[in-house]
């Protein structure tokens, strides 16, 4: 019993992480219909910037988002204006390849500035644990979960309560209709992309508290975030949260009878299976069931 509870809690915490990693991806896909293959690179750079601020300037990593968020928001806007904008009207594979190229460049930036050595952050907080009902929990993991949940709440509020947020939802539902309604679609693209990148960088910043990392960090996580987004149905943040929980539960319980090195196989298999069998994701299925 205790064992199952521990697994569940661990899975829940992991879900928080997976969800935070995937919001950016989901937003960019939902609004621009572009698959951000550079997501891994952004995660990685978010982690690096956080580490660097701690290593070179002794800035507490918990404060890093203050810099990371606006910095990467700007980066996202610039990237969208300069490159993404030009290929958005073409077949989706084109933007995929473009972002893949961007990912390579981002990796290089990391190698060039910080070399290929593994980095990790060591502060008292990062190493701290506490006990809850007999289960040992690491503070950073709980923090990441809470941060992830708060992010979801803020995002949902933004999308539903603000005018800009509603404009974003309109564009993601029907670009042309939104344009006709007077929405500056190009501006929405830039901002949404910027927010998406900032979110991923934020996730990377959180990740730096949990694991040591190097420039190729993000590759395996990238596939997991694809899996999460696909499971959750590609177009809603609640769906992402849902997909994250599904994946982390599948992994946590899969670990019971599978060697740890095969754990990533679960997300890969789920990704492919869901892509093929449930193009609208599990959330989409539930939605269509509700309609009947």
């Amino acid at each position, binding site marked *: 019993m205790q064992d199952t509870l521990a697994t569940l809690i661990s899975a829940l915490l992991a879900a928080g992480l997976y969800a935070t990693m995937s919001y950016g991806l989901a937003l960019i896909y939902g609004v621009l219909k572009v698959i951000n293959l550079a997501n891994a690179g952004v995660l990685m750079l978010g982690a690096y910037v956080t580490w660097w601020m701690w290593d070179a300037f002794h800035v507490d990593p918990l404060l890093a988002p203050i810099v990371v968020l606006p910095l990467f928001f700007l980066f996202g806007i610039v990237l969208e204006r300069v490159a993404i904008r030009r290929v958005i009207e073409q077949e989706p594979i084109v933007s995929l*390849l473009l972002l893949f*190229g961007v990912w390579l460049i981002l990796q290089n930036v990391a190698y060039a500035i910080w070399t290929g050595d593994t980095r990790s952050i060591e502060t008292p907080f990062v190493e701290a644990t506490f006990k809850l009902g007999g289960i040992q929990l690491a503070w950073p993991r709980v923090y990441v979960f809470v941060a992830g949940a708060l992010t979801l709440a803020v995002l949902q509020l933004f999308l539903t309560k603000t005018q800009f947020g509603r404009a974003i939802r309109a564009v993601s539902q029907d670009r042309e209709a939104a344009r006709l309604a007077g929405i500056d679609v190009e501006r929405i693209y830039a901002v949404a992309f910027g927010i998406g990148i900032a979110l991923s960088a934020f996730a990377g910043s959180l990740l730096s508290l949990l694991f040591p990392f190097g420039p190729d960090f993000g590759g395996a996580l990238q596939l997991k975030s694809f899996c999460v987004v696909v499971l959750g149905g590609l177009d809603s943040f609640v769906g992402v949260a849902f997909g994250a929980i599904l994946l982390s539960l599948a992994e946590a319980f899969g670990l019971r009878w599978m060697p740890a090195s095969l754990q990533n196989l679960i997300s890969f298999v789920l990704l492919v299976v869901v892509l093929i069998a449930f193009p609208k994701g599990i959330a989409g299925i539930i939605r269509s069931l509700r309609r009947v």
Partner: protein
Amino acid sequence: MYRLIALGVAVFGFLIFPIAAPHAEYALDVLFLMFLYGAMATSWNVLGGFSGQVSFGHAAFLGIGAYATALLAAAGWPLWATFPAGGLLAALYSLLIGPPAFRLRGPYFAIATIGIGEATRLIALNWSSLTGGASGVTLSSAPPAAVQYYVSLGLCAATVGAAAWIKRSRFGYALAAVRSDPDAAETLGVNTTIAKTQALFISAFMLGVAGGAYAMHYLYVSPDSTFGFSTSISVVIMPIIGGIGTIFGPLLGAAIFTALREQLEANPFLAKYSLDLSVFGLLLCGIVLFEPRGLLGIFDRLVRRGAARAPKDSVTQ
């Protein structure tokens, strides 16, 4: 006409190279790699370029071919026999994963292939009883460098020849139609699923054979070196940079790729900052943004200098 002569001269030159320069070991090595990459890039191009199905998981086939050669050679098979065996095994594997993956279109197919490639690597890593797990498999001996060179050259020539033949054939027209508009192709009688599966089969076979040559050369195969994502990336980058969907584009891309890799060894500055990543990344972005037909497309544009003729037809050339 001049192109054919130039081609003939180049081919002749490559054919006599080991005989003319028997002690140019380093050059022999570089050329071996260039032809091997050329074969690999051409193999990917049959699926990715001709039929437009961009796969980021092709390393799976290289890996299967490489391991097949390594394991069969260890079991006593002659090297030359292991190559087609590896190719066949890779092709059979493609029959397993192809049909479900082909139900996906465009970018979703690409993402699924990332998953499949990685999954294959993980299986290779964990199936220790067969593959030796992370420690990989070593081969005992390699043929002399000149022999390896001719094997690689022959492989490259064979794959390019096959690609050229396919492109002009009825099958090639089907692939071009699938690439352009699969639904319209169906209404004209092209069974797109079968066409794609056939293209994948051929692509996997060729890459599997190339995997054998890889194993022969490096004498060591491991899950990360053969099944790794970076291998998948390289077989995507080469044809795109050179000219996706063309016959010689992948070769051009392979030449550039080899040159850059070789520079990486030679130039400490380049290596220290891993600038090869940026070069490829920038090339990729540049091509996607400005000239999707790759370097060959840029040459073509320069040659035509804006003449109001029809752009190079990708099939009837």
